[in-house]
């Protein structure tokens, strides 16, 4: 039978789609900027309370390769990235429940853009957060290498998209009960953070922890960030960090797209 086709809407590129999804999510912040204040303060609290402890612990010695601030600050930046992007699915769960998710699935937006756009929204405040804690840290002896920090944030961005996509998939898998999402998110987040040497150096820990940390992609990202924040480009650890970020992003998007396709909500 001859089927007549109605005029189709204009084809958009994946980048445009990502931009649209990102902007829709970001509108919640734009329309209610106060929601941002807490998340801006959080890294300062970490830096202000953790930093001195570390400094006391190591006597600002060889363990941190110079200043403990220089060592700890990139860790805090990675941590807020992990906090932010691992919650990508939390807002989504609400929209799955109300039906907004289904409406957006019915639009021509590419499936990858749905995840990337949302993850980028979680990464947006990060840029501001990173800038604030860096500026605050400078008077305390932190040396800023702007170009290196930008490269570091880009690698983190790629990694964050992967984490965001996994969080997205988790939200779909746990759509029937909200607590499962939070239980799994917390159960994974903290071991990953600790076993990456982000908060405390693993060099002083038991051998098994160091072995396990080698299988944690976050370890490579943290290492790369430390090298970059210290002002070096000439280190293979940056490359490994990038590879870990790309692999995480690829796996995350693959898992995410699969779960969108299979979702029967």
């Amino acid at each position, binding site marked *: *039978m001859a*089927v*007549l*086709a*109605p*005029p*189709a*809407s*204009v*084809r*958009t590129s994946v980048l*445009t*789609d990502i931009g*649209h999804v990102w*902007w*829709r999510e970001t*509108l*919640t912040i734009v*329309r209610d900027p106060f929601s941002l204040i807490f998340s801006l303060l959080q890294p300062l609290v970490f830096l202000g309370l953790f930093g001195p402890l570390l400094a006391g612990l190591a006597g600002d010695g060889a363990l941190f390769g110079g200043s403990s601030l220089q060592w700890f600050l990139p860790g805090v930046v990675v941590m807020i990235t992990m906090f932010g992007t691992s919650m990508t699915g939390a*807002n989504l769960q*609400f*929209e799955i429940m*109300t*039906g*907004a998710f*289904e*409406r*957006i*699935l*019915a*639009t*021509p*937006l*590419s499936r990858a853009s749905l995840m990337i756009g949302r993850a980028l929204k979680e990464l947006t405040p990060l840029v501001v957060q990173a800038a604030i804690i860096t500026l605050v840290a400078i008077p305390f002896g932190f040396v800023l290498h702007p170009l290196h920090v930008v490269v570091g944030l880009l690698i983190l961005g790629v990694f964050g998209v992967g984490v965001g996509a996994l969080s997205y998939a988790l939200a779909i898998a746990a759509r029937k009960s909200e607590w499962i999402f939070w239980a799994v998110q917390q159960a994974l987040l903290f071991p990953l953070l600790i076993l990456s040497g982000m908060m405390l150096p693993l060099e002083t820990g038991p051998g098994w922890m160091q072995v396990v940390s080698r299988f944690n992609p976050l370890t490579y990202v943290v290492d790369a960030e430390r090298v970059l924040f210290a002002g070096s480009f000439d280190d293979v650890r940056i490359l490994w960090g990038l590879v870990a970020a790309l692999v995480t992003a690829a796996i995350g998007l693959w898992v995410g797209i699969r779960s969108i*396709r299979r979702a*029967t909500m």
Partner: protein
Amino acid sequence: MIHTESLARTFRVGKETVEAVRGIDLDVAEGELVAFLGPNGAGKSTTLRMLTSLLPPTSGSATVAGVDVVANPAEVRRRIGYIGQKDGAGHNYRVRDELLMQGRFYGMSRAEAAESGEELLRTLDLEALRMRKVSSLSGGQKRRLDIALGLIHAPGLLFLDEPSTGMDPQNRANLWDHIMRIREQRGTTIVLTTHYLDEADAMAERVVIIDHGRIIADDTAETLKAKQAGDRLTVVVRPDQAAAARALFGAEGSDLEERPDDDGVALSVRVDAASHAMPGVLARLRDAGLDVVAAAARRPTLDDVFLNLTGRSLREGES
């Protein structure tokens, strides 16, 4: 515009298998307005979600707007509009923001989206609410916003899952005015589901009755009513005349039914064009010496059609 062959979908719920849709063959031509009517759980939403590419069929095939829903779901989505059964608008957003973003999702420019959005806000009586947060809207207001979201890009083929549920009569009428107008102006093909029998009856040219995941009837409301139920004529007589009336009146039509009535016995038969037949029937009964206490001619409703087809009433299942 739509062509399906044995379209089916099952769900696994724990160890159980739910056959939500059990083989639907459907053809919808360009410009048609089709209503899916059926009780809760009949499979209406599941069918719609397969046609809109949101849910892959377990078996069978569907071509929508010239595109296979399994082979090229993304292209299907570019050619249709869909208003789901749940709230489409995000609760944390402002009304106008959601409308504009929806337009952008379909590749409209900011200006195009704004123009189309403003027009929809006007026709769906949402103008005063444009800066409100969606979570603060009433149920009917949210529903109108959902409709606006589905129409923003002026799709050539529109799917609506229970569009008017939760709206007051005034807004239901407005909604229908609007749907009829875009249909007239743009020749939009429309497939919708509804629980409102009167709505399906009055608005759709074609009613597809779905029950237990199958199409059990598919025709114009008029034809369905004429074929499946037909007009009925009812007379009430005193108990002592019941036997005589049963013989005489029963011969006036078919399918004689009887039930007790305050004034005696109510007898009813199926008769074509009952209101026209009534004066003649009453005259003949009087000539035969029967005193008719009361009389009524009744046109069938789609509920009578459903009752006749399934032995159940649609109304009982309504919540």
